[in-house]
């Protein structure tokens, strides 16, 4: 079972090695394998959304980063709002501090078959746990249609924002998942666990800034 570390700008110094490994793995997957972006000479993949607004979840097993993803508040510029707004023709582009865009999901390629999928399920469970603990109400974003049923298998409620579209031979869809206690419970049941997967070290910043929470209240 992985431990999922919450990494933000304020505690990144505690994760120098892991964060660098994370950027290199992103490069291996999103640049070399998927060819979504041009090669970077330093072998690290960074885009315009890797700002201080981002929160990273790094799944670590035996000291290695085996899975990871990035969460960004949708009231900040994010991948869907800036690059793929036309994917949201049904419900419009979400712009809410309590809706997080979930991107750059990655699972180490040296893991095979079912092991790989198990790791993905653990990451999904950790995302739900983190989102719930931060008071978010939905997480989601653009994803390959291939992976979409994964959320339903965890018993989650999935809301497509629009039609799938083909980009370079692969189909993508923008969809959000409801964040609820029940959703976390169901994901944990699938994994057969009842404990937290999250690790929080050093300083942590609330995902929804305090003043916004107050305003909401």
């Amino acid at each position, binding site marked *: 079972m992985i431990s999922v570390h919450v990494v933000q700008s304020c505690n990144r110094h505690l994760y120098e090695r892991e964060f660098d490994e994370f950027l290199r793995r992103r490069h291996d997957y999103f640049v070399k394998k998927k060819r979504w972006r041009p090669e970077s000479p330093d072998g690290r993949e960074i885009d315009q959304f890797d700002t201080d607004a981002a929160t990273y979840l790094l799944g670590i097993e035996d000291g290695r980063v085996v899975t990871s993803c990035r969460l960004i508040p949708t009231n900040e510029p994010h991948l869907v709002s800036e690059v793929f707004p036309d994917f949201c023709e049904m419900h419009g582009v979400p712009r809410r501090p309590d809706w997080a865009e979930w991107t750059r999901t990655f699972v180490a390629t040296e893991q095979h078959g079912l*092991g790989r999928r198990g790791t993905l399920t653990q990451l999904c469970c950790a995302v739900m746990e983190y989102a719930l603990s931060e008071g978010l109400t939905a997480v989601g974003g653009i994803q390959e*249609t291939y992976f979409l*049923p994964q959320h339903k298998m965890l018993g989650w409620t999935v809301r497509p924002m629009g039609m799938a579209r083909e980009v370079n031979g692969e189909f993508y869809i923008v969809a959000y998942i409801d964040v609820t206690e029940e959703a976390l419970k169901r994901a944990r*049941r699938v994994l057969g666990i009842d404990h937290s997967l999250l690790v929080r070290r050093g300083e942590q910043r609330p995902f929804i800034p305090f003043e916004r929470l107050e305003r909401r209240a």
Partner: protein
Amino acid sequence: MPLASACAQMRRLLGATIGPKELHLLAIPNASARGNVSMRVNHKAGVPMIDADVFAFLERCDSYTSPAPLLEDLLQMAGNFGFTHLILSGVPMAGQRLAPMVELMGWPEGWFERYCQREYAKVDGVCLYSGQTTRPFYWHDVPDRLASTKASRLVANEATEFGIRSGFAVPFLSIHHWQSVVSFASPEPDCRMSDREKAQLVTMGTMAGAAVEALVYPNTPPPNLLTDREREVLLWAGAGKTYSEIGDILGIADDTVKKHLKNAREKLDVATTVQAVIQAARLRFISP
């Protein structure tokens, strides 16, 4: 007991175990209902479907509490693109049998029975390719190495007797199977869709797949005692592979394979690996 004969015995036992489930699946929907669906399809291929119809379908997907009405609805929607039949199923891997993996059966009467009986899943290029790609594809784009074998061409040829000549398949991730696919079939020799139609069909196929998985495993399976690796090793053991073959396939040492099998036997409280495979299949931890 030599592994080969152990596996043969296991398959016999499994056949007995899975029998009722197969019958159940074959019964959904029954043959006459299937016929009616095809008759009622409002065939307007060539007339573009509006996106609102697709969105309405997505909303309906969540409301179904059994596979039959979902199948009927999906068939009806696919009819707008000229598709008259469909199957939604786990993709058989490593010698798995197709029948227990089928979730929605919308094939013409007789074809599914023949397809299973003659084990066409092992040679049909469309079926094989469904397990090898994550991208939606036209059947006519299946690579030659799979599609142009003699056996695969024979399957394609026989399918025409049942009014199936071309098609489009949408693979998707599945929690219990290696992966799953929803495959739409057309009586036309060469089905074609515009980019927009393709996007609409992929959207509906994917969400139908998601809905089926949520249906078939309501609130998810019983807590799975086994780790993914243990399930994987059992699956290959069930396919008749030796320790070293399994080790090669999974890229792990023979001793590690043995260790996983030992753990699986202990967790399932059985004495032999054969019993472990059977027990794991019964509990749907694996689908040999």
